[in-house]
């Protein structure tokens, strides 16, 4: 096992990896940008290294700065988390050159799976279907539009490189095609420095279901079943769960085998996720390979809570050369897990990311609930990074148990000082369609208006009373003994 691991990330995933290191008896090294000097991951690590100013390109995305930090602290391995350098094959290659273990697959595998074109080829060769689509050789707007029409509308236009839902446009009619292409290209250029576009047939009411893979350095590949990630807003996941209500045992077996086949064909190592689009339902549903994510997923906890496997510890053990301790037959799903992502964003304003101070931040704690967070009360949410604050994961014997527990958790999760999507998530989990499990990738965008409408409205009398009372009694850090003797204040109502 490694003696020391550097975590090339920030936020909740850096905290998650630091904790896994501590449990494995491995020293952790946190890196941070200037605005993150007081961040939670920096507080929790055994060692810390400043790697640059706030902009990601100068810090968390700087391969040189991260490798220098690893060298200076004697770190034997680097865990990249997700995002940032995690899917940069040049970084993985640089780690190999520097003699530092990269906790992830080999550089050439990242490169092959990172290109939608070669990944689709590989999947096809492994006998797995892909969604009809192409990266037109002629990348002029007209040629891309023509390719979309050839595949048949509706279609998706998306950056050939990239992820995170950025730049993906849904086109239903030929009239809006050119505008969408222009917008997608601008956003692709701005985000990834590459405006190459990919066009794909749009599967209506499709479900986004992915399979978790683990592969060791001794030739063993196992899958850890599916995650249902259909609840997305503008192609970004916000609620994930497992098992999927759309996946039957037989379909699960077929998809698991397909994912393992793709991983074997790719010479895959470490943790990875094969994403599928599922069309139809029942044992005979069709599923298409979308892409393979060559890293830990944000939503990995739902798999951990239902399989009992610690995926981060498994990643580190695999990177240290240990064989997988389970066979496929020993891996079982138990119960149901739902994850919701808590973002600093304003659902009433098109989910605009929010920055500011966490004036009050209290995590719920109850049996069956897990919170993976990257922040603490008093922190400042910076503007430079992804605005995800935390993830709340609820486990239950049944889907309904897990759903109710997630709602109870969110109702007891006060975050004040920045707007978050907590109220929106509660509405989503309580939506009759979600309760019945009848969801697809278009659900959130279709129901957005209804869900947001419920968030508006004037504060109820109770909230006004609390606001007024807080004004009278909010002593700075009032000790409890004083508070307890505070006479009950009665407000008898007010005029509108």
């Amino acid at each position, binding site marked *: 096992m490694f003696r020391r691991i550097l975590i090339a990330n920030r936020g909740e995933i850096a905290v998650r990896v630091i904790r896994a290191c501590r449990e494995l008896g491995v020293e952790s090294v946190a890196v941070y940008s200037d605005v993150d000097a007081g961040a939670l991951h920096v507080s929790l690590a055994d060692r810390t290294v400043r790697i640059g100013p706030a902009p990601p390109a100068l810090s968390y995305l700087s391969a040189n700065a991260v490798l220098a930090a690893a060298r200076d602290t004697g770190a034997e391995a680097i865990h990249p988390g997700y995002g940032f350098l995690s899917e940069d094959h040049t970084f993985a290659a640089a780690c190999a050159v520097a003699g530092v273990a990269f906790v992830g697959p080999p550089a050439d595998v990242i490169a092959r799976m990172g290109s939608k074109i070669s990944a689709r080829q590989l999947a096809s060769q492994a006998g797995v279907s892909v969604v009809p689509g192409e990266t037109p050789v002629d990348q002029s707007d007209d040629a891309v539009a023509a390719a979309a029409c050839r595949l048949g509308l509706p279609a998706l236009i998306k950056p050939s490189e990239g992820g995170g839902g*950025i730049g993906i446009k849904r086109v239903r009619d030929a009239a809006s095609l050119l505008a969408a292409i222009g917008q997608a290209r601008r*956003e692709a250029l*701005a*985000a990834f420095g590459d405006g190459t576009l990919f066009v794909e047939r749009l599967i209506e009411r499709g479900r986004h279901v992915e399979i978790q893979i683990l592969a060791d350095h001794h030739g063993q590949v196992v899958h850890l079943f599916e995650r249902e990630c259909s609840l997305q807003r503008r192609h970004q996941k916000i609620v994930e769960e497992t098992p999927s209500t759309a996946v039957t045992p037989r379909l699960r077996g077929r998809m698991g085998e397909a994912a393992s086949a793709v991983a074997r064909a790719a010479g895959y190592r470490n943790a990875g996720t094969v994403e599928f689009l599922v069309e139809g339902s029942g044992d005979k549903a069709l599923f298409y390979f979308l892409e393979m994510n060559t890293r830990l997923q944000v939503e990995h906890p739902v798999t951990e809570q239902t399989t009992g496997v610690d995926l981060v510890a498994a990643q580190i053990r695999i990177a240290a050369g240990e064989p997988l301790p389970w066979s496929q037959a020993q891996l079982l799903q138990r119960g149901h897990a739902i994850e919701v992502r808590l973002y600093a964003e*304003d659902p009433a*304003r*098109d989910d*605009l*990311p*929010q*920055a*500011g101070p966490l*004036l*009050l931040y*209290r995590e719920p704690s109850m049996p069956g609930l897990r919170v993976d967070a990257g922040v603490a009360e008093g922190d400042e949410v910076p*503007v*430079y990074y992804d605005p995800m604050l935390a993830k709340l994961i609820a486990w239950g014997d049944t889907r309904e148990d897990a759903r109710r527990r997630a*709602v109870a958790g969110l*109702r*007891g999760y*006060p*975050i*004040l*000082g920045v*707007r*978050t999507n*907590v*109220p929106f998530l509660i509405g989503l989990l309580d939506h009759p369609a979600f309760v019945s499990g009848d969801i697809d990738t278009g659900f959130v965008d279709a129901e957005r208006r209804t869900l947001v409408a419920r*968030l508006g409205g*004037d*504060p*109820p*009398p*109770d*909230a*006004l*009373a*609390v*606001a*007024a*009372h*807080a*004004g009278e*009694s*909010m002593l700075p850090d*009032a*000790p*409890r003994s004083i*508070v*307890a003797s*505070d006479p*009950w*204040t*009665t*407000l*008898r*109502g*007010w*005029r*509108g």
Partner: protein
Amino acid sequence: MVKEPGTGNLAPNPEPRSAITVTALGHGRYRVSDGQRQRLAYAAGPPAARWVFLDGHVYVIDVTASRGSPQVRALHDEMALASPMPATVAMINAKPGRDVSQGDVLIMLEAMKMELPIKAPRDGRVKVVACAVGDLVQPGIPLVELE
């Protein structure tokens, strides 16, 4: 906005004992009771923008005002017309004196590689435009004022 005790009772429950009782529990926690059921609430922030969390909902309330709803709305207005983060002004569609409808994009900002539209929170007439294309604007400061 909150009147003296005893001057009226608009609480939902018509019984006389339905007055709302608030107890500070310390560290920003409050207990709210209607005499029967109780709930936990949380509050933080300055009087002009007091944040309240109650049963999964968040409210930002101006308790300096002497009357309730208008101030709450005005505050919403202001927040809607400001950038949520440092951003660059990419485009301005608003002109003083021009009528706008709820949802109209008044200003397009650019931040974090994304376009951020600032939309009219309600129907109204533009009074002031307080920025220019290319400006780096700070969060919380209204960029447009409606009449």
